[in-house]
Each structure stands twice: as C-alpha cells, then as structure tokens.
C-alpha cells in the first residue's frame, strides 16, 4: 500500500464518524428504510395469510412498495444524496482551511490524498448499505417468520454490491466538484444540480426527444411504437439512476426476464409467457445485468480519472 494511504483513510473515517452531517443523514435513511421494511413486511404477511407462499418471498421485502415506495426505489433516489454529502467538500474544505498544503508538504504522493478520501467514503457507504440491509433482513425474519434461501442471500449480496458501486459513483462526482470549485457552497449546489438532472430530468427529456424524433405519437403502428420505446430507453440509459434501477430490479426480482420495462404482447403471447413463468436462475439474472454494472463502474472510473487529472495538474499556490 502506498505510503500514508492507511493514515489518511483512518483519519477520514474518524472525521466521517464524528461528523454531525453523516450522523443525521444516516439516521434519516435508517429510519426511513426501517419504516418501509416494517410496512412492507406487514403487508406481505397479511396478503399471504392462508395462501401458499410463492418462491423468493423474502426478496419481496426489498421490491414491493408498502405505503410509498420500495426500498430499492428509495435507495435509487436518495442513495446519491449520501454520496454527495460525503464528498462535496472533500478537497476544497482542506484548501480553504490551508490544511491541503500541510498535507501535501508531508512525504506522500499527491494521488494518495484523493485515493484515501475516496476509499474512506466507499467504506462509509458500504457500512451504511450493509447495516440497512441487515436491519431489513432481521426485521423480515421477525415479522414474516421466513428464512431467506441460499439464492436469495446471493441476490441480496449482489444488490448490495451494485448499490455500493452506484453510491460511490456519486461520491466520485462530488469529489470531482470539490476539486474543481473553490467554494464548498458552489460544489454542493453543482453536485445537487447534477443529481436532480440525472434523476428527474433525463426521463422527462427522453420522452420529449422521442416525441421529436418519431413523427406521430398517436400512431398505432407497432413498429413505430417500438422505435419510440427504444429511443426513450436508449436516452434514459445515460442516467446512472436508470442503470441502477434496471440492474437491481433484475437481480432482486427473479421473475423479471429482461431489463426492459415495456413488453408488448398479444393475448396468445401472454398465455405462452404464463406457461413459462418460472423464476430466472441467478446466473441468467447476472448475465442480464453485467453490462449495466460495467456501465456504472465505467462512469465512476471516468469521474475519478477526471478528478485525478485535474487535481494532479492544479498549482499549489496560496492555499
């Protein structure tokens, strides 16, 4: 390990754990996920009373929406916020306090500073996601009295990994802004704007774009409907949230056969579908989501690479 990396990670972790900011956001997310899991658990229990239990019932804790949204949707929306909050002032706060040049005048390489900070953030995210999932699993055991199967545990594990990558991606974005902007307020706002844009506006934009590209939206020609759906899909895949939602939905819901949300079927087709409605094996689910996971990692790596280059080139002047 590079010299000083461990020291910096250790210090960053201590800072994170003792900061109010992290405590507040962690409490908020833990509370919301607890409530969600509790309501979903009760729901499932009531609905399934006296009915033969379907397979993979345990995973329904994560996917079915109780009162408002499911846990998976919740993490997709608000997980990025955790990454942003952890990272938006990483470098510029140190710059403003004059501690960055102190750090850099010690015998460590410059990249160790951002690597250490990024890794410490990833550890925080992992701790948070794992504890939330553990709490929900425990709660599910209590409420429903069902033990998750081996495959279900694997799927939950994969879900965790994808979620950690997804939130780390936003951490990378936040760190990038903290390097580019001198003021912490500016970097926080820029990161928030980015989050809102990719989480809410891309799907809106996709529809507008599709309307513009396909001539007539009222057309009932199946080819045209398909083209339009494809445009929407392709465009919305630029959003990490879309990538994440599709990937996790496939992993955590074995009944899903593809990442596509729209399947157009005739009546005969749906009958034949119903005959083959068994769950997808884990290996096949993984096969479907691998490209999505790779895209997520690629975006994270690109963000980090840009941060790295910008940081290495920045002049240490009057800091």
């Amino acid at each position, binding site marked *: 390990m590079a*010299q*000083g990396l461990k*020291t*910096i990670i250790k*210090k960053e972790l201590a*800072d994170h754990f*003792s900061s109010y900011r992290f405590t507040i956001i962690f409490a908020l997310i833990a509370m919301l996920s607890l409530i969600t899991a509790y309501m979903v658990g009760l729901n499932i229990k009531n609905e399934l009373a006296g009915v033969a239990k379907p397979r993979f019932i345990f995973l329904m804790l994560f996917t079915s929406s109780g009162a408002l949204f499911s846990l998976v949707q919740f993490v997709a929306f608000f997980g990025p916020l955790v990454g942003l909050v952890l990272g938006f002032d990483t470098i510029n706060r140190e710059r403003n*306090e*004059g*501690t*960055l*040049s*102190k*750090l*850099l*005048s*010690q*015998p*460590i*390489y410059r990249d160790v500073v951002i690597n250490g900070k990024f890794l410490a953030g990833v550890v925080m995210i992992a701790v948070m996601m794992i504890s939330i999932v553990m709490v929900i699993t425990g709660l599910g055991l209590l409420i429903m009295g069902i033990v998750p199967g081996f495959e279900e545990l694997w799927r939950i594990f994969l879900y965790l990994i994808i979620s950690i990558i997804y939130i780390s991606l936003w951490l990378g974005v936040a760190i990038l802004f903290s390097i580019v902007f001198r003021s912490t307020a500016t970097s926080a706002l820029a990161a928030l704007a980015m989050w809102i844009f990719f989480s809410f506006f891309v799907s809106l934009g996709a529809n507008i774009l599709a309307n513009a590209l396909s001539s007539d939206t009222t057309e009932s020609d199946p080819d045209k409907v398909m083209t339009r759906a494809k445009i929407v899909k392709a465009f919305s895949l630029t959003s990490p949230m879309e990538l994440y939602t599709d990937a996790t939905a496939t992993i955590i819901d074995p009944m899903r056969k593809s990442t596509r949300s729209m399947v157009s079927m005739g009546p005969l087709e749906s009958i034949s579908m119903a005959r083959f409605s068994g769950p997808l094996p884990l290996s096949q689910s993984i096969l479907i989501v691998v490209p999505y996971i790779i895209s997520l990692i690629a975006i994270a790596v690109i963000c980090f690479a840009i941060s790295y280059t910008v940081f290495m080139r920045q*002049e*240490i*002047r*009057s800091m």
Partner: protein
Amino acid sequence: MSTKAIIETHELTKIYNGQAAVDQLTFIVNEGEIFGFLGPNGAGKTTTLLMLLGLTEPTSGKARVLGLDPTRDPIKVKSRIGYLQENMGFYPDLNARQMLRFVGELNGVTGSAAETRIESALQTVGLFEEIGKKIGAYSRGMRQRLGIAELLIKDSKVAFLDEPTLGLDPDATNRMIELIQSLARDQHMTILLSSHMLQQVQKICHRIGIMIKGKMVVQGPIDQLAQEKFGVGKEKYSLEQIYMKYFQEA
C-alpha cells in the same frame, strides 16, 4: 561553521500566467545557517519555498535541497524538510496529540516511539499542558509553536519557516525567536526564515537575502551589506535602513 551548501538554486524561474513570480533566482544556504529571506509581500518568497519543496514545478532553472532535486525526488525532499506555512494549516477539530500523531504517521513515525517524541516535542515548545486541547481553541502564538513541535516530530534537517512571527504579540514573538534559535543550536537545523520583523531577523540570522519582484537583489552577512551600501559596520546601520535602501533602489 562548515560551508556545505544545503540549499542551492540556479536561475530558478517560475512563470504564472505570463508573469515571472520568481525570476532567475540564484542563492545558497549553508549548513547550520539561519538564512533571513526578506522581501515585500508578493515578492515570490512563498513560491520559492514551494518550488524547493517540490510542491510546484519550476518553469526553468535548477534547485538542489540536500543534494536532491525537489521536482524529481519530492518524497525524499519532503521527508527531510519541515515546512511551517504562513497559515499553519492545522485541523481545528484535532487536539495537539492527534495532530502530531497524524503528521508522525505520515512520516513513518509510529507507535510508542511517536508518543515519546510527541511529548518531548510539546515540552520543548511549552505546550505540554495543552496536549488534549483542540487546536481550534489555540491562540496564534500557540499554533506557531505547535508548528515548531511538528518539525521536531519529523526530525527534519532543514526547516522552511514562512512568516513564523506574523501577527504575534511581543512576548510571543520573543518566545518564537528563541525557539528558532534553539532549533539551529540544539537540533543543528538549517533554517530558511522568511519574515518582515527586521529587528528580530537582524538578531538571529547569520546571512540574509533580499528578494524584490522575483529577483534576489542582494545576499550575504548583514555587516557585509552595511559595508557595501554605507561603507560602515553594522553597528551604525540597522537592517531596516539597509532594507529600505535596497527597496527604494529596486
């Protein structure tokens, strides 16, 4: 005093946005010396220090610190130089012990060796009673002394002190000056001291260099400069008068 050069630069130049912040700077600091690095604000003193530390790349010219090239060997150079920067740059939420432990770890000083070194360093600078206090609650003078303690933790052979007496009250200034002298005397450190407190500089520095607009206009022992400028010994003229003379000429 030996005459081995610890710091050596040759036509060192740094250009920011087309303007030369440091312009063909050539100077030498010898071993065990306290070198007074003088000059108005914005003359390029800090930039020179950053280049000698390997934090900023020179546009042209050469620099040698302890025989090493700071641009090529920044890690080695940084492990041997203690840099007390103008704004100090301490984490306000840490206490003195945690801060020094952090610096020690980054320099490979860990375990019980680090703890004893931390305690003796804080004793030397007179901060042992404040060891558990958060740095955010320290006065400016205390922070400066903590900065000196940091140099002791690193056990550096060379110290760059950038305005160590800036904004200190007279009592704290005297304490700081005594500390700096003891560093050179007891720890055999070579010290590059940048300051505006000309009286103090005159008291403790062996040689001085005056830098104006990125250029070193003169360097040498103070009495030699007095001799050159006024034709008399330093008893007659204060460093302040010499400095002003050069400043007006530039």
